[in-house]
């Protein structure tokens, strides 16, 4: 695979700065959403458990910048960033996390199942690895329907050990599907470093199937975007590719994880790799002023507050409506309601 020839970070002109600023906006949007959720989770306002993508925003922002609305993505338990960057309804997102009837999933899915089919976001997933085969099938559909779209499977490094990984890599390569595999390698699978879960590197595995693989700094959004633009074009015309993004899991496995199992020095060093810090630094070097950045932050904060306020005001979902939606448009028998009690 040839290397990308342009990079927003490498550029110096007006365009490069504008592109990076757009990516920065995406980073900030994801970060502020996650931080807002973190606060609300601590306040007991978000039920269930949530896995935040703080520290990994550049992967979502960079890859999604290369996709069209027709392209589809399948995501993971740590899916907020993917969903937000793919452009899912922000109101629908917060309403879902707060379990409202106006949520994208009408309060039935929550954090691990956010989805917005209208923008090709085929769903976060509570089952490690499951998104791989969903993306595989989506890519197959794109090719059969000849609609020029591609599918993207996001997965963590822990998912590399699942059998489905192998089956999907093999089939994607065999059928030359328009499928991009994006590994978010943050070094951890729950509470164990993936170095103790894996006897192989993704690079080595990729070589077996002959799928071109590249490993990049997943915390530099300019780098991610540049590679993604290049690779997505290849996937569209030639077939499967693997993009491995080296990144950082900042807030532990799930929100509330104290990460006692982690080296404090390692944790402390994470801030140096902060995707927002890196991008902000690059923008400053390009001459973008502090005000432009804080305007973005302010604007996004307002946008998020509006979504939160709307979600808070929204009604809770109704049980009967949920019951009626298990099958499509059918009045199905409800055992516990009819003869029963």
């Amino acid at each position: 695979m040839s290397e990308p020839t342009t990079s927003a970070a490498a550029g110096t002109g007006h365009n490069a700065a504008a592109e990076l600023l757009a990516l920065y906006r995406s980073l900030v949007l994801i970060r502020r959403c996650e931080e807002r959720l973190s606060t609300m989770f601590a306040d007991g306002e978000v039920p269930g458990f949530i896995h935040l993508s703080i520290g990994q925003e550049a992967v979502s922002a960079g890859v999604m910048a290369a996709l069209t609305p027709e392209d589809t993505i399948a995501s993971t338990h740590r899916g907020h960033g993917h969903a937000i960057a793919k452009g899912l309804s922000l109101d629908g997102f917060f309403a879902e996390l707060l379990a409202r009837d106006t949520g994208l999933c009408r309060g039935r899915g929550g954090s691990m199942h956010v989805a917005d089919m209208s923008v090709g976001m085929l769903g976060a997933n509570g089952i490690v690895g499951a998104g791989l085969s969903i993306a595989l099938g989506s890519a197959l559909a794109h090719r059969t329907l000849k609609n020029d779209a591609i599918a993207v499977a996001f997965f963590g490094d822990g998912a590399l050990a699942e059998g489905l990984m192998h089956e999907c890599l093999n089939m994607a390569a065999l059928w030359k599907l328009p499928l991009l595999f994006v590994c978010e390698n943050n070094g951890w699978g729950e509470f164990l470093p993936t170095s103790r879960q894996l006897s192989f590197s993704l690079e080595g595995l990729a070589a077996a199937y002959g799928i071109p693989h590249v490993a990049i700094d997943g915390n530099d959004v300019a780098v991610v975007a540049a590679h993604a633009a290049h690779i997505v074009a290849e996937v569209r015309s030639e077939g499967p590719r693997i993009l491995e993004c080296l990144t950082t899991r900042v807030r532990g496995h799930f929100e509330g994880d104290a990460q006692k199992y982690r080296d404090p020095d390692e944790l402390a060093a994470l801030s140096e790799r902060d995707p927002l810090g890196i991008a902000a630094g690059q923008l400053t070097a390009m001459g973008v002023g502090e005000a432009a950045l804080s305007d973005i932050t302010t604007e996004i904060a307002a946008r998020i507050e509006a979504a939160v306020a709307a979600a808070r005001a929204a009604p809770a979902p109704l049980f009967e409506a949920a019951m009626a939606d298990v099958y499509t448009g059918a009045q199905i028998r409800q055992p516990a309601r009819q003869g029963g009690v």
Partner: protein
Amino acid sequence: MAEMRYLRAINQALSDAMAADPSVILIGEDVAEAGGAFGASRGLRERFGAERVIDTPISEAALAGAAVGAALSGLRPVAEIMFMDFTTLVMDALVNQAAKARFMFGGQRSVPMVLRTPHGGGLGAGPQHSQCLEAWFAHVPGLKVVCPSDPASAYGLLRAAIADPDPVVFIEHKALYAMKGEVPDDLPVIPLGQAGILREGRDVSIVAYGAAVHTALTAATQLAEEGIEAEVVDLRSIQPWDEATVLASLSRTHHLVVVHEAVEAFGVGAEIVARMADIGFDELDGPILRVAAPFMPVPFSKGLETAYLPSPERVAAAVRRTLA
């Protein structure tokens, strides 16, 4: 009316569905070039092309998951799992993905896929190639489960399953593939969820599905010689199942026997009995009995397997017991 084999009816349904709707594709191991391990998709690759009839590697989990992803992305995949015993490898795709997607995504999109698979014994295929596992799928909200007993319903139900917006587990019986039966010339679609009454009778209702329907019919013929008139209900769909037809039959006969080839314990029959023991309680003039497989893996030896499978004699004995 024309005579057609059960396997041919399935082949015809696949063919007609593919001709009617270009988004229907077939995917599975040896479904394309070989035309299916049992021949269900014979000739379809030649007719519809390798893009729509797809041979996969031996990767059941991924092919089933791919069917879900394809169904969410505009296709109507019909996946084949060669033996129902191998559905152990696709449970996640079916149960955690296909069944739940519509509901857990708030009704944004449905998953119009069919998973075809043959169940059942009688071929000496042993414990890992003979199981009837339909109860698992019937227990999963979001899945539909169908099991035709003859060529006409195999055709009609498969067309309905492929047209259905939701995921359907379509179960064929290996021992029925060679069965011949009358099929109406206009090949009607048979709606999911509707049972058929194959024989009317006033004394007892026998409810069955799949190959067990024929066991029930044979028992009914034997019982008729004793003056016992059994009504035989072919359930056809297991989820949703036609409890109105079963209740109506029970209300006429006041006695009920349920027959299937799956293991009795925690099997499909348990739900039918449990439901009728509730909403049909006042109609009951005798215990509701089940005739099904005992609590053991399907054995290889012919003798063991014959003793294992439900027989007309055991059905007749159950009828006599509930009438006693």
